[in-house]
């Protein structure tokens, strides 16, 4: 059965999603857990964790990753 243009577009879109979201996230998580001893965890490291999770509004209202958008 020949592959249609729509199917090629779908496969392309799926590969894009894998490369854009799946692979980097999976690699980040694997890297995080493979590190046997991340060293001394400092207060600064903990503070930096807060900035990694901005309010959901930041993602939808065009201010993604805004470090100001975290609770006080």
């Amino acid at each position, binding site marked *: 059965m020949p592959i249609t243009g729509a199917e090629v577009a*779908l496969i392309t*879109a*799926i590969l894009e*999603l*894998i490369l*854009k*979201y*799946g692979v*980097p*996230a*999976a690699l*980040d*998580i*694997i890297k*995080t*857990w493979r*590190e*046997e*001893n*991340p060293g*001394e*965890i*400092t*207060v600064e*490291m*903990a*503070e930096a*964790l*807060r900035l*990694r*999770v*901005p*309010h*959901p*509004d930041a*993602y*939808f209202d065009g201010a*993604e990753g805004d470090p100001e958008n*975290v*609770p006080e």
Partner: protein
Amino acid sequence: MRRNFDFLALVVLLITGMIVLGVNACASNPAEKETFEGTTYKVLTTAAITYETSMSALSDLKKSGSLKQSTEKKAREIGVKFWGAYHTAADLFASYLKVGSAEKKQRIEAAIVEMLAALSTFTKYVAPLIAD
């Protein structure tokens, strides 16, 4: 586009599975068990990565006009729950690192359990919602 959403849902579920595997792997490793700070840091980092990935994907879908308004509203609602639970755990962890105590440690453990439950709810809700 429907199939793209289904695939995205699959990606979200796979990441959730990886978190569970990662947490279990850590718990079964005696060396890691000894480092409460290290494990807490890794769990929080993993949760942050999952959240970032899911929200970035949803954000891109919105930019491309493929995200329903109702889906976005629901994603915001459940995202806020995780966001609150995450920051509670992260704040307690930062406080523990400044001045540690057994009581704070217990509170962090409880906050982490709550955060993981919120993350699970987040990923479970996001997956079927984006597949609509």
